[in-house]
């Protein structure tokens, strides 16, 4: 199996590119006018989960941060789609 440096060889440049894309995305949001909706705050919260996964894998922590944690089925669907983050 590959060692840690093998994994860096395989994925570092791709991950570096995605990391800079995230930074530029947040800069882009900041640079433009108007209020942001729940997705912006949820994204920032997910970045905190990434930094502090609290014993979970980082991917699991980020996914759970963006998830609906209620337990009961809802009365009716307001839309068919999903936003990518739970509005609350």
């Amino acid at each position: 199996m590959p060692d840690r440096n093998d994994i860096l060889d395989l994925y570092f440049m791709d991950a570096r590119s995605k990391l800079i894309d995230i930074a530029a995305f947040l800069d882009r949001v900041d640079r433009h006018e108007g209020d942001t909706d729940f997705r912006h705050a949820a994204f920032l919260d997910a970045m905190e989960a990434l930094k502090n996964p609290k014993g979970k894998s980082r991917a699991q922590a980020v996914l759970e941060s963006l998830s609906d944690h209620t337990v009961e089925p809802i009365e009716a669907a307001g839309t068919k789609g999903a936003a990518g983050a739970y509005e609350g």
Partner: protein
Amino acid sequence: MGYIEPHAHMVSRTTDDYKAMAMAGCEIICEPAFWAGFDRSSPQGFYDYFRQLTEYEPARSAKFGIDHYCWLCINPKEAEDPGFAREVMAMIPDFLTAPTVLGIGEIGLNKNTKNELAIFEEHVALAQKYDLPILIHTPHLEDKLKGTKLIIDSLKNAGVDRGRVIIDHVEEHTAGLVLDEGFWAGMTLYPESKCTPARAIDMLETFGMENVWMNSACDWGISDPLAVPKCLQEMKRRQHNKATIEKVSYANPMAFLGQSKNFRPVES
């Protein structure tokens, strides 16, 4: 090396896609019934769709040397209207005599509503009545975790044979929930959502190679009918050996699908 595409919506794909999949080594395609990207105007629209799945697509696929099977249901996005959904479900038994129908799927939840859950439970009862395996769609994005938990609870209450149920579209926060309860898990390789090849392999390495398969779930949206062979190439880059790759891409789907009486295994 041959592979099985266990979840693809070929009604939405071009003939060139069939050709490319055949060239990449695809031997078997399984097509669950799903949402067409718009709501059908009448239950009769599903009659035509079920004919397409059981008659037309197997013939189209055969032209490229690929066996085509299907799963039947009304998808969760159109299950929010229970009256409509039950009219569609009433048609399903007539199609179960078709020789390429594997079972009931892809049923599941979309927005985790009470109506979706009621129709899901009725589909599960239908599968139990006809002794069929079940393929389950889990919700998208922020709805996936809650929906997966609701689905697992419902399946446990119904007393299904967990080894004959595959819960699809798992990600890092749901794969363990599914596998720990004894169900099969499907990983969907999408360019933007669900998971990338690298993440799918991470999950294989984390949760193990048992009771899992990978699929492209290619449809009318942003998706890639060659996602599975591309992931197999990625497994080679990650130094997985041929036996492991063959297990995930061929032996595992063969084992699950072989539980359907209409599935006729082929030699690789």
